[in-house]
C-alpha cells in the first residue's frame, strides 16, 4: 500500500452543492490521498454521488474549491487537460452505457473518444474483455447483460484509456456476491499492474468498505469522519464497521436505532407457498428455470440473488401476475390460477422500487387499495385507521408520498400491501436504497408481522446480511434455485461461516468457472496524444456512428425517421387540396323546358359539379342540405323558358351550403362564372374589357403542383427537427450524457456528430420525397436540380440544428418535443409564405418570416420546381440559409453545457 506521502489526488475546500432547494453537500473539506483505494461510505442520499460527480468534473462546482490532479476543476482548461486521466463510472447498473450497443461497440466508442486508433482499440477490447470474462459476449447488447456483467463492461469502458484516477459510484450494488468478489479482484489486479492509480469508491455496503485503505464516512451532506478502518473502529470502540458508522452519526439520529432481534419461531407450519418446477420463458430467454421451493406458514423466507437473476419473475408468477410457462405454484395447497381473483385477496405484494400513486395522498392510496380489494365499505375507514396506526403513518395521512423520505414511503408501501390483511406478504427488494437505521426498523416490523400475526413473508434481497435474518433462504442465480435451507444449514453444507460465502461456493459451482486469467500487464501504456484539441473529426465521427446505431435499433424512432415524412407527404398532398371538384348539386326544376335543361347541362358539364337526383320540393331540399349531401341547390322558376323568350326578367334561386366557408366561396365563384358563361351563350351583354388571365408556372392551377413544392420544406422541418430534439435530451434522461461531461469530447464534436446521421437521413427523405413528387404526383421539376439539392442540404442542416437547439437546454424529452412543435409548426405554416407570402405580413410576423429558414427554402423549392429557376435567381435565399446554419449551430454550442449544472 502506498503511504499517504504524495500530494492528495483530490482536495476539497468548503465545497457546497444544492439541487434546487435540497442541500446535497454542506461545506465539505477533504483531502483524498493518492495511490490508494478510498471508500466513501454512508447510506443513499447523503451526498456521496454528488461529491464524486464534482470530483469527476461531471457536475459544475457551485461553492468552494476542488483541486484534482494538481489543478482547479472550476477551470475548463484544466478539466479538458485532466479528463483523459480520470475515469468515472456513475451510479446505476451501466447507466452510462448504451443499452442497444453491443459490448464491443460500447468499449470501442469509449476508446475512440480518447483518440485511440482502430488497431489499438481492437487490442484493448480483446485485453479488457478477456480480463473481465466478457470475451464470449462481445456481440451481446449491453442492455441484455446481467447486472454483474454490465458493471464489468462499465469498468472496461472506464479503464480503456488508462486513467490515473478511477471513480466508481456504488459499482457493486445489486450484483450477486460472486460477481462482486470477481469485480474487486479485477480492481485489485488492475491496481497491481498500475500501482500509481488512485481509486475512489462510494458504497452503501459496510462489509465491502472494510477492505478499503482509507474511508470517508458521510451523513447528511457532511463528512463525519475519515481514516483507515482500524482508525475508525478504534475511535468508536465498535466491533464492525456498520456499528462504527452508526456510532459516528449525530446523537438524535442514533437514538432512533435499536438492534434487530429475531424472535424464535414456534414450530413448523403447513406450507403456505409451494413452487414446483416453475419455469418462465420470454421468447428464447429462460428467465426462471425449473425453480422449486416451499415456504412454511408464518416464516420469513428470503430470496437471495443478483438483479436480473429471476427473483422478481418468480415472485410475479407466485402472485399470479405472470402465468408460468411450465410448472405450478400452490397457495395453501390450492393450485394458483392467475385468472382467479380470489387468491389475490390472500396475498399482499410490494413491488420493487416505490410504486404507489404519487399523485394520491397517503390516505387516498390506502383507501383506494382497500376498495379494490373489496373490503366492505363500512369497514374501510376503521381498517385504514388501524393500518395507519400500526405502520406509524397517522401523522402524515394527508401528505403526498413524494414529499416523504424513503423510509416512510417504504412503510406506506408495506401498509398498502397489508391493508386487506393478507395471509402471505410478497416483498420484492423492499429495502434497497434505504439507510441502515430505517432498514433495521423495517425488519423489526417484518419480524413482528411474522411472529405475532403469523403472516408468511416472502422477501427478496441482494443484501447478504438481510439473508442472515431470514428463517430460511433460497439462493437464486441465472433463473435457477441453487439451494434452499436455513442460513446456518446453508453455511454448514458448504463448510463456511456465512450465507455469502456459501452462496459464492454454489455460484462457482454453477458457473463452472474458476477466476478469469489475470490481464497481461499493459506494458505499452499508450502515450497520450494531444487530447486537448478543440475539434477532432474522429471523435465527431464516432459520435455520429453511435447515434446512427442507436437510431436504427429503436424501431419507433427509426420508423418515424424513415417513413414519417413520406407518409405525411401523401396525406398532405391529398388532404390539403384546393382543387374543389365533384361538388354535388341538385335542381328543383319547376320549368322542365329545353331552356332550363340547357342551364342545368351547362353546370353539369363543367368539371366542378356532379349532379344528384332532382329535388322534388322545398322539404326535401331542406333535408338533403341538412344531411350535407348537397353543396349547391338550384331552383328554376316555372315559366323560365317562356319568360326568357319574352325578355322578361327572371330569377334563378341558388342555395350554397355555407357550413364550409372556403368551399362555399369556391361554389359561389363557379356558379357565377357558369351563369355568366350561359348568359354569353344565350346572348347576354358582353363585358367592356377582356381580362386575359395567365396562370403562370402552373397553367392548369392544379393543387398538387402547387402544394407539393410547398409541403416539401414543411416535411423536411417537422420530423427531422423532432428527432434531433430528442437526441441530446434523451441522453440527459437516460444518464449517458455523463460521457460527454467527463470525456475530452467538445461541444461542437458532440453536436455535429449527433446531427450528421439526421442530416443524412433527412437528405435521403428529401430524395425519396422529390422522386415521389415527380413520379407519383406528376409535379414537373423545371429548374435546376443542383440548386434544389444544395438548398435542401443547407435547409436540413438548419432544421436539424433547430431541434438540437431545443434539445441542448431542455431537461426532459416531453418538454423538448413540445418546445420543438411550438417553434417549428406555427412559424413554418403561418409566417413562412406557406399560406400568405411573407411580403403581405406585418410587424413581428414579418420579422420572423424574413429570418426563418423555411421561408427561404420555400422560395428555392417553388423556384426550382415550378418557376424553372437556378442558382443566380435564388442567390438571396441561399445567402440567408447559409447564414442561418452557423448561427443556429453556434447557439446550440453556447446553450449546451459541458457539465451538469
Amino acid at each position, binding site marked *: 500500500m502506498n503511504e499517504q506521502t504524495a500530494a492528495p489526488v483530490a482536495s476539497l475546500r468548503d465545497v457546497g452543492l444544492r439541487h434546487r432547494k435540497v442541500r446535497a453537500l454542506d461545506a465539505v473539506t477533504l483531502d483524498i490521498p493518492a495511490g490508494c483505494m478510498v471508500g466513501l461510505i454512508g447510506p443513499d442520499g447523503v451526498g456521496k454521488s454528488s461529491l464524486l460527480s464534482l470530483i469527476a468534473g461531471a457536475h459544475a462546482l457551485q461553492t468552494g474549491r476542488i483541486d484534482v490532479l494538481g489543478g482547479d476543476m472550476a477551470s475548463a482548461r484544466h478539466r479538458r487537460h485532466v479528463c483523459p486521466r480520470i475515469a468515472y463510472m456513475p451510479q446505476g447498473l451501466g447507466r452510462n452505457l448504451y443499452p442497444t450497443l453491443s459490448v464491443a461497440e460500447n468499449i470501442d466508442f469509449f476508446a475512440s473518444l480518447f483518440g485511440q486508433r482502430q488497431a489499438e482499440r481492437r487490442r484493448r477490447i480483446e485485453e479488457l474483455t478477456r480480463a473481465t470474462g466478457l470475451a464470449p459476449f462481445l456481440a451481446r447488447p449491453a442492455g441484455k447483460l446481467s447486472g454483474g456483467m454490465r458493471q464489468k463492461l462499465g469498468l472496461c469502458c472506464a479503464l480503456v484509456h488508462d486513467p490515473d484516477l478511477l471513480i466508481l459510484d456504488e459499482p457493486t450494488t445489486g450484483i450477486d456476491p460472486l460477481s462482486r468478489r470477481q469485480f474487486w479482484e479485477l480492481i485489485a489486479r488492475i491496481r497491481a499492474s498500475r500501482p500509481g492509480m488512485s481509486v475512489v469508491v462510494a458504497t452503501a455496503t459496510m462489509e465491502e468498505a472494510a477492505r478499503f485503505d482509507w474511508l470517508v464516512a458521510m451523513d447528511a451532506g457532511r463528512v463525519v469522519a475519515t481514516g483507515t478502518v482500524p482508525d475508525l473502529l478504534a475511535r468508536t470502540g465498535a466491533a464492525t464497521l456498520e456499528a462504527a458508522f452508526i456510532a459516528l452519526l449525530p446523537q438524535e439520529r442514533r437514538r432512533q436505532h435499536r438492534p434487530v432481534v429475531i424472535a424464535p419461531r414456534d414450530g413448523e407450519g403447513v406450507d403456505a407457498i409451494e413452487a414446483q418446477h416453475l419455469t418462465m420463458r420470454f421468447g428464447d430467454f429462460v428467465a426462471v428455470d425449473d425453480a422449486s421451493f416451499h415456504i412454511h406458514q408464518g416464516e420469513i423466507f428470503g430470496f437471495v440473488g443478483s438483479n436480473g437473476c429471476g427473483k422478481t419473475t418468480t415472485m410475479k408468477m407466485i402472485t399470479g401476475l405472470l402465468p408460468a410457462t411450465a410448472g405450478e405454484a400452490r397457495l395453501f395447497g390450492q393450485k394458483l390460477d392467475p385468472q382467479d381473483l380470489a387468491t*389475490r385477496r390472500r396475498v399482499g405484494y410490494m413491488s420493487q422500487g416505490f410504486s404507489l400513486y404519487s399523485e394520491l395522498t397517503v390516505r*387516498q392510496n390506502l383507501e383506494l387499495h382497500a376498495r379494490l380489494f373489496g373490503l366492505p365499505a363500512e369497514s374501510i375507514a376503521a381498517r385504514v385507521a388501524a393500518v395507519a396506526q400500526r405502520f406509524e403513518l397517522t401523522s402524515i395521512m394527508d401528505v403526498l408520498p413524494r414529499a416523504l423520505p424513503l423510509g416512510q414511503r417504504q412503510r406506506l408501501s408495506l401498509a398498502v400491501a397489508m391493508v386487506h390483511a393478507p395471509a402471505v406478504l410478497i416483498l420484492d427488494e423492499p429495502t434497497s436504497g434505504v439507510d441502515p437505521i430505517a432498514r433495521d426498523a423495517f425488519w423489526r416490523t417484518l419480524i413482528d408481522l411474522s411472529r405475532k400475526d403469523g403472516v408468511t413473508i416472502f422477501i427478496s434481497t441482494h443484501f447478504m446480511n438481510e439473508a442472515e435474518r431470514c428463517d430460511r433462504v433460497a439462493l437464486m442465480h441465472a433463473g435457477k434455485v441453487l439451494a434452499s435451507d436455513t442460513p446456518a444449514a446453508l453455511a454448514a453444507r458448504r463448510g463456511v461461516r456465512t450465507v455469502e460465502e456459501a452462496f459464492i461456493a454454489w455460484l462457482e459451482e454453477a458457473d463452472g468457472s474458476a477466476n478469469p486469467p489475470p490481464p497481461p500487464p499493459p506494458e505499452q501504456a499508450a502515450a497520450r496524444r494531444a487530447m486537448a484539441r478543440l475539434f477532432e473529426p474522429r471523435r465527431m465521427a464516432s459520435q455520429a456512428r453511435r447515434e446512427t446505431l442507436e437510431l436504427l435499433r429503436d424501431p419507433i424512432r427509426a420508423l418515424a425517421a424513415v417513413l414519417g415524412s413520406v407518409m405525411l407527404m401523401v396525406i398532405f398532398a391529398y388532404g390539403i387540396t384546393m382543387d374543389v371538384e365533384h361538388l354535388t348539386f341538385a335542381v328543383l326544376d319547376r320549368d322542365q323546358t329545353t331552356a332550363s335543361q340547357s342551364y342545368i347541362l351547362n353546370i353539369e358539364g363543367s368539371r366542378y359539379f356532379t349532379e344528384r337526383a332532382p329535388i322534388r320540393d322545398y322539404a326535401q331540399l331542406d333535408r338533403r342540405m341538412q344531411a350535407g349531401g348537397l353543396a349547391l341547390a338550384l331552383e328554376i322558376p316555372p315559366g323560365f323558358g317562356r319568360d326568357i323568350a319574352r325578355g322578361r326578367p327572371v330569377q334563378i334561386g341558388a342555395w350554397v*351550403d355555407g357550413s364550409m366557408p372556403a368551399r362555399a366561396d369556391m361554389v359561389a365563384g363557379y356558379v357565377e362564372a357558369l351563369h355568366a358563361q350561359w348568359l354569353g351563350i344565350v346572348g347576354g351583354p358582353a*363585358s*367592356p374589357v377582356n381580362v386575359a388571365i395567365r396562370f403562370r*408556372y402552373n397553367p392548369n392551377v392544379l393543387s398538387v403542383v*402547387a402544394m407539393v413544392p410547398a409541403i416539401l420544406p414543411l416535411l423536411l422541418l417537422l420530423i427531422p427537427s423532432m428527432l434531433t430534439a430528442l437526441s441530446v435530451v434523451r441522453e440527459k434522461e437516460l444518464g449517458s450524457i455523463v460521457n460527454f461531461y467527463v470525456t475530452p469530447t467538445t461541444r461542437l464534436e458532440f453536436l455535429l456528430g449527433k446531427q450528421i446521421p439526421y442530416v443524412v437521413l433527412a437528405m435521403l427523405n428529401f430524395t425519396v420525397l422529390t422522386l415521389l413528387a415527380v413520379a407519383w404526383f406528376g409535379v414537373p421539376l423545371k429548374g435546376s436540380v443542383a440548386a434544389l439539392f444544395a438548398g435542401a442540404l443547407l435547409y436540413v442542416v438548419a432544421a436539424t440544428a433547430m431541434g438540437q437547439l431545443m434539445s441542448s437546454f431542455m431537461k426532459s424529452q416531453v418538454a423538448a418535443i413540445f418546445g420543438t412543435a411550438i417553434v417549428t409548426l406555427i412559424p413554418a405554416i403561418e409566417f413562412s409564405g406557406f399560406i400568405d407570402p411573407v411580403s403581405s405580413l406585418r410587424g413581428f410576423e414579418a420579422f420572423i418570416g424574413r429570418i426563418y429558414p423555411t421561408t427561404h427554402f420555400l422560395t428555392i423549392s417553388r423556384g426550382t420546381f415550378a418557376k424553372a429557376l437556378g442558382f443566380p435567381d435564388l442567390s438571396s435565399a441561399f445567402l440567408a440559409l447559409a447564414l442561418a446554419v452557423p448561427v443556429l449551430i453556434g447557439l446550440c454550442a453556447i446553450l449546451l453545457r459541458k457539465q451538469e449544472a
Partner: protein
Amino acid sequence: MRLANILNLGVKELRSLLRDPIMLVLIAYTFTVAIYSAASALPETLNNAAIGIVDEDRSALSQRIVAAFYPPYFSTPRLITPAQMDTGLDEGSLTFALDIPPDFQSDVLAGHKPDIQLNVDATRVSQAFTGAGYIQTIIDTEVTAFLRRYRALAAPPVDLALRMRFNPNLNKSWFGSVIELINQVTLLSMILTGAALIREREHGTIEHLLVMPVTPFEIMASKIWSMALVVLAATAFSLLVVVHGLIGAPIRGSVALFLAGALVNLFSTTALGIMLATLARSMPQFALLTILVIMPLEILSGGSTPRESMPQLVQAVMLLAPTTHFVALAQAILFRGAGFSVVWPHFAALIGIGTVLSGLAMARFRKAIAEMG
C-alpha cells in the same frame, strides 16, 4: 364488484389528473385559447394579397383601377415596370401582376374591348383562383362604372339569386372554431388515455394493480371512462362558452345530440390512445406515434378540406376512421341543425368502429401486460 372497481379506478385517474399541472394546463389551453386563436387566425383566402401593377396607360381609368385595390383583401398595389413584374413573380414577392396596356382608356371608350393582362403566380393555388376572380370583377365594375358616365348599359335579363345557407356571411371563424374543437377532442382523448397508461407503467404502478383482484378489462375501462368524461366536459364547456359565447357561432342543432356523438367518438379515440400507449415504450415514443397517427386522422377526415375533392381510394379508406364520421356528424348537427333522423348512420358507424377498436386495444393491452413481467 366489477363496476365498483371500474368506478374506483376511474376516480383515481381523475385525482391523478388533478395533480398533474402540465396536463391541466394543456387541457385548458387546447379547449379555450387554441380554439379561440384558431378561429380568429383562420386566414381569409385573400389576405393582403401582394399585387403589382404596370400602368402603361396613365389615364383616369387606369388610375381608377389602381385605386380600387386596397387592404384587407389586397395589399396597396406596387407600381412596377414590366421587368420588375417577372422578378417579383419569380421571387414570390408578388402573387398578382396586372399589366394595363397603353391607350387602354381610349380603346375602352371606343368600344374596342381591349385586353388587360393579369399574371398570376399559380403556385399559390388558394389565392390564385379566388384572387383572379376578384380582380376580374373589380376591373369589370370599375370599367362599367367609368363607362356609365358616358352611356347607359343594359341590365342582364336572367338574374342569379345566390344565397348562403347556414352561414350567410360565410364567417370563417364559426367554421374554424368548430373544426378546431373537433380536432382537439380527438387529440386530447388520445393523449390523455395514452398518457394515463404510460404514466402507470413508468411509475411501476401497473404491476401493483395487476396483483390486486382487478382485471385488465377493468383497468382499461376505468381509464376510458374517466378521460372521456374529462374531454366531454371540456367539449361542452368549450362549445357553449368559447365557440358560442365568445366567437358567436350559432348552434343550430341540439347540443345534447352533438355531445352524444362526441361520446361515441371518444369510445374509438380513447381505445386508439390505449393502443398506441401499448406500442410505445416511453412518453417520447408515444408522442412520435401520436403525431404520425393524428395527422392523417385530422387532415383526411373532411374537416379542413372537403372529402369529395380527395381521391376515391382515400375517401373509401377514411370511412374506417372515426374522425370522418365525427366531423360529418358534428357539421350536420351544429351548422345545419340536423336531427338524429339525419345523422344516425354516422352514429351507427362510430359505434361499429369503436367496438372493433376497443376490442383490438383490449387484446394489445392484455398482451402488453403479459410482456411487462
